[in-house]
């Protein structure tokens, strides 16, 4: 992860918060995220303000429109534009959703790919092609979805695992999406999380969502993060180690301070997890020397 110069906790950059942020970025925020679709070839005031952020903070490009799993040919011109945009703003990480958004024209929404064997090969090949064009690995995000496809021949977890494995790409873990899908499709979110290839996680998202009836959650990013989602983040850190994590908020935008306190929550979960990891390794280390020994831990004992 050092190669990405990305660490700690971040906030999705919204136009509404640019001015207050430029007056002083609160300390819990280590980095920002934008969608290249919102800033690519943009001019004017907002483009100038955007530059303020890219010149001072690491920024992640979280794509919306690549349609990695869609029927239209991969839009390679668009990818080259993204590549130029990332080079211009020194953006190191590009992530996209495991979904599609176009069929002979864009729909500007994230639609579900049926979980089939054929789709695995198709999507993985397109991710590989994307990585070739960008000349770097990308991270693919587990997406939320509302309509389970009747033609799926495997479950969601197997599908994600197979795509990531075959594409040899990184995983962008969204714990809110796991929660949303677990309610919409009736599965255990913790078990699902633990089944993901943790060694491939480079980046994470937390967000809030909307309830639309007892068994349907809409992934609106329009509310505060709920406790079960925070809990999933804790488990992810415990299981896979801490990774840079961002708070998404895309509608019902509250004052900045409200979001900063949620970013701070990410920071404290990260710290708590790091402390636990240290304690555990200290415990493991001491237990392999003489139990009564109060001597400082020697590196050699880790290998004994």
């Amino acid at each position: 992860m050092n190669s990405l110069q990305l660490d700690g906790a971040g906030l999705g950059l919204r136009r509404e918060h640019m001015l207050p942020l430029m007056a002083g970025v609160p300390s819990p925020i280590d980095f920002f995220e934008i969608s290249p679709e919102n800033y690519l070839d943009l001019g004017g005031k907002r483009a100038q303000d955007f530059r303020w952020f890219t010149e001072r903070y690491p920024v992640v490009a979280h794509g919306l429109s690549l349609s990695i799993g869609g029927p239209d040919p991969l839009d390679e011109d668009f990818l080259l534009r993204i590549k130029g945009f990332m080079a211009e703003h020194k953006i190191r990480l590009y992530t996209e959703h495991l979904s599609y958004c176009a069929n002979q024209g864009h729909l500007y929404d994230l639609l579900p790919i049926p979980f089939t064997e054929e789709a695995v090969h198709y999507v993985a090949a397109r991710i590989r092609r994307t990585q070739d064009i960008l000349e770097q690995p990308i991270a693919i995000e587990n997406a939320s979805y509302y309509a389970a496809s009747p033609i799926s021949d495997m479950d969601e977890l197997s599908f994600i695992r197979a795509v990531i494995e075959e594409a040899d790409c990184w995983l962008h873990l969204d714990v809110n999406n796991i929660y949303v899908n677990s309610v919409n499709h009736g599965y255990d979110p913790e078990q699902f999380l633990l089944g993901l290839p943790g060694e491939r996680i480079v980046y994470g998202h937390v967000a809030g969502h909307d309830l639309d009836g007892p068994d349907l959650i809409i992934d609106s990013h329009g509310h505060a993060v709920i406790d079960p989602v925070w809990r999933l983040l804790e488990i992810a850190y415990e299981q896979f180690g801490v990774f840079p994590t961002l708070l998404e908020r895309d509608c019902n935008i509250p004052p900045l301070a409200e979001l900063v306190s949620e970013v701070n929550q990410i920071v404290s979960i990260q710290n708590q997890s790091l402390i636990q990891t240290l304690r555990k390794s200290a415990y493991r280390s001491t237990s392999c020397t003489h139990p009564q020994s109060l001597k400082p831990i020697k590196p050699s004992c880790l290998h004994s």
Partner: protein
Amino acid sequence: MHSSTITQTDKAKLPAFLNYQQQFVDYLRNPQNDQRIPVSLPTRVDVYAKLLHSKIDASLHTCFPITRELLGATLWQELVQEFIRVHRCQSPLYREIPDEFIDFLMHEKPQIELPEFMTDLAHYEWMELVLETEKPAKANPIFSINDALLAITPALNPVLHLLHYRFPVQSISALDEHWKNWQNRPTPYQQESVILAGIRDADFKIHFIKLNAVTARLIELLQQGFNTGKQALLELAAELHYDAPESILPFGIDILQQLKTQHIIIGALHEH
């Protein structure tokens, strides 16, 4: 018949999941009531149809507030749905959804027939977004100027659009009875053409400046980028069939001066 046979064959060749995705998207573009959801699709495809409509609606509503207000909620919703059904958006950029809508209004002739003035109004509302977000092409360096506007080759504002409308779009308001009653008029509105220069100034403010035809033509001549102020004015005089072209210069320089004040001319293309 032949072409439909080919389509059928091609479809048969598609992997099942792509076929399914096409049916899914076909439904999103043309959703029916719950009973009509094809058996091959899950009922929750409807959730996506609603999300799609509200997303497109929100983007267009923000860009076209007066058009929407004048059209009224029902017609507006129908127009948005027709846009989703008929138009194929080519831009991957969310901020360009309004560009796609204008393309649809201008070139795809919606079934919901809009009065002429409303198409002009929508274009004018869209231009505000265009001017706000346009990234000008990399320009040559621009040199500062004094008042020697005849001698220099004027550099125009890099974010400048000359706009010709058939109706006075700037004064159309959703509160004005004259426009509000568009559906109840016995006769169409009288055309009353206007030319506007839409610009973005150095402080990122958007201005629409009303021009007369002569000034607009002068700007076009300057846009060619090789005329000095004097050459452009003399060419204009020739087009206007002046007997003594030089006689345009005394008031021509006033026009150039005014264009400078209005941030339409922002400097010179050469050092002088």
